[in-house]
């Protein structure tokens, strides 16, 4: 399997706490992988290391075969690795259109090209009617959609989405799901962190379940969700 992203033996400690312990997996081009696990299992810490927001203590990460361990988020973004945060991160005092233009211009699009792309994304995500409002005035769901859009101003090699569906209206969830499905069909790779199991089942052919910083199970989503260790550590009796 040709690897788009290769995570090898990544470990992160916070004092005596091992947040991520010797995590190893590969993501192939065009794969849509669900990253699941109980709260505190190390999913966000792992995403932080993968996106350059945190440096790991051990291990290596390669993007397209090139080492990228320790690269800053802006360098990784320019190499095609985009990240959506669990707690929404946008530019509240800039308008919605400018929020998207920041990504577009920083990633090398010309001004006109970036505007066309931004307007297209706003239409697709159904927030075009608020394009001239300051982003800080949007609803929580609209902010999530905006941050989601920022990740796609230039088609990324890999999008890391941390809880994109948390605390948003089902309509907005559907808009985002549809977007992910469409891009995945075109060959876009994703890592999707979510506690929303129906969405994981629907969208992700493969899942990785983490617990206590380690990979508990990695494989077909249906197999992962029925693995006794995953049921025991994460899903409990309800999913059986």
């Amino acid at each position: 399997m040709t690897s788009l992203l290769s995570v090898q033996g990544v470990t992160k400690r916070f004092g005596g706490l091992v947040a991520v312990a010797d995590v190893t997996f590969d993501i192939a081009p065009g794969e849509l992988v669900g990253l699941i696990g109980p709260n505190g299992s190390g999913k966000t810490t792992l995403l932080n290391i993968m996106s350059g927001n945190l440096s790991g203590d051990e291990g290596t990460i390669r993007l397209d075969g090139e080492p990228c361990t320790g690269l800053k988020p802006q360098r990784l973004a320019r190499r095609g690795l985009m990240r959506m945060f669990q707690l929404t991160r946008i530019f509240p005092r800039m308008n919605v259109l400018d929020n998207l233009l920041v990504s577009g211009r920083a990633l090398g699009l010309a001004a006109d090209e970036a505007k066309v792309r931004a307007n297209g994304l706003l239409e697709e995500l159904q927030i075009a009617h608020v394009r001239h409002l300051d982003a800080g005035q949007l609803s929580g769901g609209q902010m999530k959609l905006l941050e989601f859009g920022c990740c796609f101003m230039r088609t990324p090699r890999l999008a890391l989405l941390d809880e994109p569906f948390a605390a948003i209206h089902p309509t907005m969830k559907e808009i985002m799901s549809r977007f992910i499905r469409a891009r995945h069909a075109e060959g876009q790779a994703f890592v999707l962190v979510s506690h929303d199991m129906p969405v994981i089942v629907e969208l992700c052919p493969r899942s990785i379940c983490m617990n206590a910083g380690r990979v508990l199970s990695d494989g077909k989503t249906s197999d992962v969700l029925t693995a006794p260790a995953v049921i025991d550590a994460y899903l409990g009796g309800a999913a059986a």
Partner: protein
Amino acid sequence: MSGDIRLRREFIATSLLLLVLALLPLAMRDVYWLGVLVVSAYFAILASSWNLLAGFTGQFSLAPAAFAMIGAYGAALSAAYYNVPPLIGLLIGTVSAGLIGLVLGRIVMRLRGPYLALTTLSFAEIVRLVASNSINITRGDLGLPLEPWFNDRVIWFYVFLSALTFVICGLYLLLRSQAGLFLEAIRDDEIAAARSGVRIVFWKTAAFAISSAAAGFAGALYAYFASLVTPELGLVQQTGLVVSMTVIGGMGSLIGPVVGAFLVYVTSEWLRDVGGWQLVIFAALVIVFARLFRAGLWGLVITALAPRRKLA
């Protein structure tokens, strides 16, 4: 509202304000008040340069007066020791402040909030004390004299007004380019800006250097106007005045620091007769604006002019 439209509106308003100011000497020939207007224009440049850093990039530096002093000494020392003409002196003052700003910008790169404020304040005090104690070179608190460039205060007023216009046009062009987009993104959320691919170190350092260079330019010009450069130019009280002017006028807007500088300085001169009370009045004003009108006077104007929506 689009950031572009907002910026253009502020630029038009600033241009109109500068036009009105340009007409003032036609109605007023009093030498003292012309001097007050010149110093107001000096502070307007200083406040605008600080606003680029604090208002548009989110870096709360407490060294604008120190950079003005560096610019002033750059011009004065080159004139005193190498007899350079004023235009070259201005260039030396501007470039030296810009280069020192570049170095300081890199040093304080990862600092924010009170840590950044304290570090820049310490830098400002070190620079001022070095200037004050290098008696063999700077003549210390006695000050370094300069040959006056012009003697006519009307000419000085138009020189400063042209310099202010130049700085405002430069800031407008910078802010409406992609650089402005990136600086505002860094101000709003540095982590989100990095995620978007913005080169944080480059743009933060660039903002620091440009802001310092503009402050140095103001200081160098002021040196030729005052014909004497002393370490007092870099006093922390001067920085306090610059911050107050920007907050009262409207931080993060192109016009705010210009309105604030003229209003605060002219009013403080007008209130000179009430002695120490003028400081109390301005301190109280800063508290009121910081607490109740974060967008400053310009924000109040915009709110007053905004069309009111009727409830159905």
